[in-house]
């Protein structure tokens, strides 16, 4: 490993070091504030080292990892997301006797796994990153072990994630059997033949199943609502954003050169996208629990993102990056409000918990409204520009069926986002909402700024994304 290799991997190294420091700090002295600060510093340090890594980029570091434009962009996104989640974990109201210090350690490890995923170009690093992320997540989801639902959610995730890992491994093995290669491009090579062998198709199928599970695409979405509802709100935020974002970064790389390579694969992807968009939105209509509602909405959003995959091309890649960023901001925003509205008794995860929020906490309610409108893709918010770009990319490539599913899904989606907003302005017996802490206010403000700025003035981010093109 040369100096430049180390320079390029600096963000990962800082993150790993931070995990060790946090672990030692916990062993030395259990202090919530101290550990949280260390974890936040670690993530901030990793973010701060991105410009250094950029100097070495683009660079393949060992055959396993590559640090290029997209890697750096998604690293930035994932690390920022984790930083927000750290703040949320700290804000999460603890019951007496609960110890949350180890959650920061798990959070850092999971982020490390996500970052490895985003940089991986090899089956080994892909699997390594994925397992690091998943194993940390099992523990994170089930962390509040006094509550039954969290344990249930954790076990559910454990079993299904393990099964999907098995699918992934088998898929990789088959792909290796066909091509004799372990790089991600092997999948594309396997499909290059005029009529790909059954083994090659099976490999891709198994791979898609594993990917579909992680991204919670229909029909691999069954774990999502339970895990979203059972896990503590900050962890749910992590599952919804960082975990899925990292996987999507891999998928973008994986299918980058697949551009219409095989009709059957395109057909399956189209099917996954359309089903996710429609079922995600339709099932969300039935939810009275905000976290479950967001679970189904996230299924639909990943469906929208798949449209960029089907569209392929430069514009589609930019659209994917923009949309994912907008999705991160809005989803983190929604979960930040859930976290801030919860008290030590229970989480504020039912719609009824938000009744009349507009009249008692206007700023928080306005922020949640903006986040939901962004998810719905209404102008002035980041989500609108994202949806516009995805639509443009889709129409540009003429993938009409997913485009119409996107429109239909968006129209259905509006209804359930509006339902939440309507509850917030309705009168009625309103629950008491805890006061907003200074850190909570800071978190909300730091999410509100990009939420609106990306919707009103998209040019800077577009330029940034263009600068980090592959």
């Amino acid at each position, binding site marked *: 490993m040369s100096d430049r290799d180390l320079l390029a991997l600096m963000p990962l190294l800082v993150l790993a070091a931070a995990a060790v420091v946090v672990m030692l700090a916990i062993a030395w002295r259990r202090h919530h504030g101290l550990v949280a600060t260390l974890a936040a510093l670690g993530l901030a340090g990793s973010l701060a080292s991105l410009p250094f890594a950029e100097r070495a980029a683009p660079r393949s570091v060992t055959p396993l990892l590559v640090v290029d434009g997209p890697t750096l962009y998604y690293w930035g996104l994932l690390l920022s997301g984790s930083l927000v989640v750290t703040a949320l974990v700290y804000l999460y109201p603890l019951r007496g006797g609960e110890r949350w210090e180890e959650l920061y350690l798990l959070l850092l490890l999971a982020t490390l796994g996500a970052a490895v995923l985003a940089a991986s170009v090899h089956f080994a690093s892909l699997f390594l990153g994925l397992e690091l992320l998943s194993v940390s997540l099992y523990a994170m989801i089930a962390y509040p072990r006094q509550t039954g639902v969290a344990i249930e959610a954790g076990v559910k995730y454990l079993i299904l994630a393990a099964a999907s890992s098995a699918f992934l491994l088998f898929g990789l093995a088959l792909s290796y059997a066909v091509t004799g290669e372990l790089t991600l491009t092997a999948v594309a090579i396997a499909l290059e033949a005029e009529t790909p062998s059954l083994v090659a198709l099976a490999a891709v199928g198994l791979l898609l199943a594993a990917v579909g599970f992680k991204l919670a695409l229909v029909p691999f979405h069954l774990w999502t609502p339970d895990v979203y509802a059972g896990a503590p709100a900050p962890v749910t935020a992590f599952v919804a954003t960082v975990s899925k974002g990292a996987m999507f970064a891999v998928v973008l790389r994986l299918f980058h050169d697949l551009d219409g390579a095989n009709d059957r694969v395109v057909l399956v992807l189209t099917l996954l996208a359309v089903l996710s968009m429609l079922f995600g939105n339709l099932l969300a209509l039935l939810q009275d629990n905000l976290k479950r509602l967001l679970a189904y909405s996230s299924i639909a959003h990943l469906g929208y993102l798949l449209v960029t995959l089907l569209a392929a091309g430069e514009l589609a890649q930019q659209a994917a990056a923009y949309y994912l960023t907008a999705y991160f901001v809005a989803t983190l925003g929604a979960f930040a409000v859930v976290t801030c509205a919860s008290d030590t008794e229970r989480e504020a995860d039912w719609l009824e918990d938000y009744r009349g929020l507009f009249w008692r906490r206007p700023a928080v309610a306005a922020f949640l409204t903006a986040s939901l*409108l962004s998810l719905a893709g209404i102008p002035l918010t980041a989500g609108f520009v994202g949806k*516009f770009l995805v639509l443009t990319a889709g129409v540009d490539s003429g993938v009409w069926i997913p485009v119409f599913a996107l429109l239909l899904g968006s129209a259905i989606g509006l209804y359930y986002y509006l339902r939440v907003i*309507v509850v917030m302005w309705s009168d009625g017996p309103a629950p008491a909402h805890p006061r907003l802490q200074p850190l909570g206010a800071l978190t909300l403000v730091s999410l509100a700024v990009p939420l609106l700025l990306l919707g009103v003035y998209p040019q800077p981010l577009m330029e940034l994304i263009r600068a980090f093109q592959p």
Partner: protein
Amino acid sequence: MILLALLAIPLAGGLLAWLPRDRHASWSRFICLLALVLDLGLAVGIWVRASDDTWLAQARWEWLPGLGISFHLGLDGLSLLLVVLALFLGILSVAASWTEVTTRVGFFHLNLMWILTGIIGVFLALDLFLFYFFWELMLVPMAFLIGIWGHENRIYAAIKFFLFTQASGLLMLLSIVALALAHRADQGAWSFDYFDLLGTDTGRLGPWLFLGFFIAFAVKLPAVGLHTWLPDAHTEAPTAGSVVLAGLLLKTGAYGLIRFAVPLFPEAAATAAPWAMALGALGVLYGALLAFGQTDLKRLVAYSSVSHLGFVLLGVFAGNAQALQGAVMTMICHGLSTGALFVVVGLLQERLHTRELSGMGGLLSSAPRLGGLATLFAMASLGLPGLGNFVGELLVLLGAFRTSPWIAVLATIGLVGSTVYSLWILQKVFHGAPAEDVVVRDLSAREVVTLGALATALLWLGLHPQPVLDTAQPTVDSVMELLRE
């Protein structure tokens, strides 16, 4: 810069109006009035200084240059008239909600002002992305206005309104994107600019793209079949909401047809013209018929809107300058007369706590000023010569008769219908035997000024419509020129 100021003043005014606590509610009202009067002054200033150019003012800033999107505003005669109308009705809505809205006053005015901002933006935008941006922007505060300050069934109405307009808006967005891509395929460069996209060769996609625009505008207009959101939204909205909905929001649909749908797709528009005209005439009849069948006064006025806007649809697609002028005139006069009728209904509801016709009667004796003015507005609505609506509807019918006489004849029957329901209102509410021995308060000075301003405007448009026709002329000419090519 002046165009940016037109947008920025209501935007900032709304934010400022939000600041005062409910105890100092009148501050919010005065801030809004001040901002709107100032804005109206600006717009009238442009009108007075107007030259003969088609475009009186334009401004352009880069926004998303990578995709050829710019913040392009422009003002021609048509936009100017509608902006003036928007601000005028905006002032009256603030006045009309002076005593009606007593809760959450600051937030109410924030929403009202932002709707106006969105509407003015729609009338000024010359970039299709920007147009869509404003188009959607006005929906959220409007849904809030209906959903928070509306009547009994407000949540249902707000959601229905939002879903109808949003879903149709998405189709328009798809059309906009496809049009821009067709332009790129043609010219090799991205652009969402109106002038660049004019004359784009869309090939066989053309009719479909036109349909996308048409559906979005027809929902807003509303055309028969896509109108079902309107009676609910109108009925449940507070007075100011109804005034803005009827007076302005519906006009954005008509404006969209004149500014975008027809000029961008002249061929498709010509093909669709007979169908659209028939739809318009059907709307005239259907609206009048259903208006007559209502027992809720506000619903009745709402259905009369469907009828009047049928004339606009008829005029836009008749394909000659006369009818188009008539459509523009009808848009403005309908905004004023229906706005006025909604204010009257609001005043009645404030006094009687009912909108049911059966609960009213003989009010002329106790409220002569209200009765007198209401008579004037009902007369305007039925198209009495000397009042603005007559000029508009006559021009539409004359123009339409030249292209398709039978459709024009059909629409004329609708005029009879509007006479029936207008007189029906007067008879039931102000004449006849009093339903109970209620004594209603007559108009206060503020209310006289509000309604008096509307009455004056209608009289002026009816007796001396030439300035308005002259202002709209260049726009009408340029649309006709595009159609002839």
